[in-house]
């Protein structure tokens, strides 16, 4: 993650003084951070501190929540993603998302992965076949399902379904993949597989992951951002962000240390 690598790759987020309100409630305020490309950035913090809210700012999924209002400036590769000429639908093909619970569509494995490319207008069978194979390979699911791509997605195990959802998100060839606690509903072995997948994925994409699991954050992320909401009356804030190694061994803020060592949250 040297400066020179950062210059010729895409998938860089810059957040400046971002705040989100739900109706009259200010959920997060004053968040500024840099999200480097081809790296895993972990968002950690106690429940309700706005991790999911911040994540949804990055692909404008907050737009789908009527009461949510995002302020501040967020750029992706230099372009303001909340600018008038930015189409949220187009943005989401560049910034994919994987959710907490595996949520495959009620259709075949193949159709799940092909959903994004088809939405973008890809119709050629050979092209779709290629995208489906590449995406499933990158999500480390290809070996297990290549024989029955016509199988219904619900016949897969929970862990396989989650990797299918990762493959589905990769199929639009995004620059960034957002993950909101992607392993929290999985058993330890599936969790391990998803973590391995993430480690390989950062070769191609920027990853922003929300996790409640400190060991997981320490294992898989390069950067860690710690968020905290001190009381319900105040909005949540970004306490600090830094290299994961440093954050976990020598945090700059007392509150980070308290959280990481398990004294609250």
């Amino acid at each position: 993650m040297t400066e020179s690598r950062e210059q010729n790759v895409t998938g860089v987020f810059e957040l400046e003084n971002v705040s989100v309100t739900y109706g009259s409630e200010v959920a997060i305020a004053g968040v500024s951070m840099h999200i480097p490309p081809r790296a895993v950035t972990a968002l950690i913090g106690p429940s309700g501190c706005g991790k999911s809210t911040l994540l949804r700012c990055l692909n404008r999924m907050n737009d789908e929540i009527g009461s949510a209002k995002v302020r501040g400036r967020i750029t992706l590769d230099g372009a303001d993603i909340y600018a008038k000429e930015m189409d949220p639908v187009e943005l989401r093909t560049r910034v994919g998302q994987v959710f907490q619970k595996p949520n495959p569509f009620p259709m075949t494995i193949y159709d799940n992965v092909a959903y994004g490319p088809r939405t973008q207008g890809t119709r050629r069978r050979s092209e779709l076949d290629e995208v489906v194979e590449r995406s499933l390979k990158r999500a480390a699911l290809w070996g297990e399902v290549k024989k029955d791509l016509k199988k219904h997605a619900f016949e897969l195990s929970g862990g396989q379904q989650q990797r299918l959802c990762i493959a589905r998100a990769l199929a639009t060839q995004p620059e960034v993949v957002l993950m909101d606690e992607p392993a929290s509903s999985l058993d330890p072995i599936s969790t391990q597989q998803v973590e391995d997948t993430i480690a390989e994925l950062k070769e191609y994409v920027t990853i922003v992951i929300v996790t409640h699991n400190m060991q997981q954050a320490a294992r898989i992320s390069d950067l860690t951002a710690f968020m905290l909401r001190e009381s319900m009356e105040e909005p949540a804030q970004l306490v600090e962000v830094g290299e994961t190694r440093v954050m976990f061994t020598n945090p700059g803020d007392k509150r980070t240390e308290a959280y990481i060592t398990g004294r609250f949250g």
Partner: protein
Amino acid sequence: MSRRIRQARLTQTLAVAITGAAAAFIVTAALFLLGYILVRGLPAMSWEFISQPPRGQMKAGGILPSIIGTLALTSGTAAFALPVGVAAGIYLSEYAPRGRMTRIIRLAISNMAGVPSIVYGLFGLALFVILFSFGTSILAGALTLACLTLPVIITATEEALRQIPSDLRQASLALGATRWRTIYRVVLPAAAPGIVTGSILGLARAAGETAPILFTAAVYYKRQLPTSIFDDVMVLPYHIYILATQVTGRPDDIIWGTALILVGGVTAGSVIAATWRSLQRKKVRW
């Protein structure tokens, strides 16, 4: 055993007995009803009964015009009510903003469901038969029945769509799909079983209604089969009413035979819907 536990057990036994008895009563009543219609109606069944028009002042012959009339009316009702009802259900579940206007629309729909069917008949007469000058016709009757069925279809659609986890919608939107694409590629297919079942129940009800078509579509006696949507028609439920009240000296079994055809048709529709739904269920579960 303490007194408290013994009492709790007694209450439990009583609860099982009472709810069980109610269930048994309903099943018995339904079986008795169907069995009675079957026993009384079967003697009338013959090829002539379902393939010929009535003759001998409706005391003999068949009921073909009524069967065709009911089929035509029900298909017409489906053609109007399904697209509009499903579209309105989609709007209410997926697009309608939470607000006063939407509450008013919902209130209007549930009120529509409560309007007596004879009132729909009068409304259809005033609007479709007279104002639009469709006359007493399949068209006017189908439109009237469609108004009556709409609330059922709208509600069934809305309920079925609400059952679909919001996770699926989110996943589709996050892949860069528009709302509409999300609805018709992901949400609607998943909700289809519920929508179809609800709609068939609504249409089955419509097929058996007499009051709404009394002034808008039904005719007392007509040997010819309809050739256009502007024709009036004989219809099964109205034919039963006519046979029972207006035709003296007719054999009882032709009334019950007509009822059997109506009930049989409606039941067949429900069974097909239920079967299709359970086949779909095997494919779709969360």
